[in-house]
Structure formats: structure tokens, C-alpha cells
């Protein structure tokens, strides 16, 4: 069964540094998402992406965040200047259409020191 893959599995970064989290969605999927889960809290929606543009974003997704689909397969989340509170598990997901279930990757654990 096709899967969403995320790299790296764990990223440790100094506060203030830029970090890029990478995702390869399922190949025939058209909708892409990022979620995060701070330790002990709920999984929270960050952003959705369709047709090469952001279709929806949450309050969390402020100017320090950006997403990009640089080629036909990758979908990246960039955090420009990381803060301690950005430490979380970041999940990528994709779906065939807006009303189809989302398939999740294993997540990237981001630790900001």
C-alpha cells in the first residue's frame, strides 16, 4: 500500500535556526497537509495545499512558516527562525480529493534547543 514518507524522523536544531521538514505524499494525491502535535497536546492543523497554493491555514501558521512543492514529489514545511515552542511532532498528510480520507506519514520529531 502506498505511504506518505517523511524525513528526517528526528531533527534537532538550535533556536533561531531555519529548519526544513520534508514529505513525499502518495503519488496520485492532490491535497497536502501539515499538522503538528506538541507533547501532551492535541494534533493541530497547520496548513493545507492544493494546486500549488495554500488553500487554508490556521492561526499557528504565521509568517515564520512556509510550504512549498519544489518538484513533482516533495512537499516541504519551512520554519524560518525556530523558537523553543516549535518543538513538536510534525505530521504530513495527503488525500486524493478534499472529501477523501487523509493518509499520514510517520512524522518528524522536531526538538529546538
Amino acid at each position, binding site marked *: 500500500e502506498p505511504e506518505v514518507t517523511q524525513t528526517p524522523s528526528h531533527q534537532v536544531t538550535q533556536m533561531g535556526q531555519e529548519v526544513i521538514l520534508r514529505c513525499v505524499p502518495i503519488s496520485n494525491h492532490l*491535497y497536502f497537509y501539515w499538522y503538528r502535535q506538541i507533547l501532551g497536546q492535541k494534533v493541530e492543523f497547520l496548513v493545507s495545499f492544493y494546486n500549488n497554493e495554500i*488553500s487554508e491555514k490556521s492561526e499557528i501558521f504565521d509568517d515564520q512558516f512556509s510550504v512549498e512543492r519544489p518538484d513533482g514529489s516533495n512537499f516541504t514545511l519551512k520554519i524560518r527562525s525556530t523558537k523553543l515552542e516549535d518543538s513538536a511532532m510534525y*505530521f504530513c498528510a495527503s488525500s486524493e480529493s478534499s472529501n477523501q480520507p487523509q493518509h499520514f506519514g510517520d512524522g518528524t520529531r522536531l526538538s529546538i534547543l
Partner: protein
Amino acid sequence: AQSVSQHNHHVILSEAASLELGCNYSYGGTVNLFWYVQYPGQHLQLLLKYFSGDPLVKGIKGFEAEFIKSKFSFNLRKPSVQWSDTAEYFCAVSGHMNNNAGNMLTFGGGTRLMVKP
């Protein structure tokens, strides 16, 4: 704004016991409802979904859930759990969209289920 609440944070059962995990949601429109499961060390996997039609939906591994619109609930059930059902279970809701916008999921806080052999 939509929200999802799961009443049980931790559940411990013995094998063969019956399971019911509660999920209530708040949303001002037509909803899609989901249960996801996360086994230790693995990614979120879809257990079952409700979009429309029969409010009793059956998923993988013997799980089922019932959508009760009047109660804004979508409880997950399994008649007889196994040790391999030990995992964290997440209820989620999205709006039923008819456009090309992405469809964000709102998750509940999760329920950790431990099944004792």
C-alpha cells in the same frame, strides 16, 4: 469553530472485553467523521470514516462506530478487544466541502487504550 472531545484519556481493558470510546464534536454544518489509530511507533492509520448514509459504519479489525446526529457523537466500539489493539485512538472531524479547498481535520485529544493479555 469546530471542536472534538474524547472523554476517556486512558482506558485499560482485559482481552475479550468490549470497548466503547466516546467522541463528541461541535460543528455548524455537514461533517465528515473519522477514527484514526496510532499503534506504538507507527503513523496515524484510518480505522473508519463516515461521510453520509448508514450511520453505523464498519471499519478495519472489527471496529465500528455510530454517528448519532442528535447527540453530535461518533463513538467507537469493538465487541471483543485483543492485546494487539493496544494503541492510541483519535476521533477527528472535517467539514463536508464541495469546493477545491483543502479539508482540515480537527482532532480530539486521543484515548490511550491498553489491553492486558
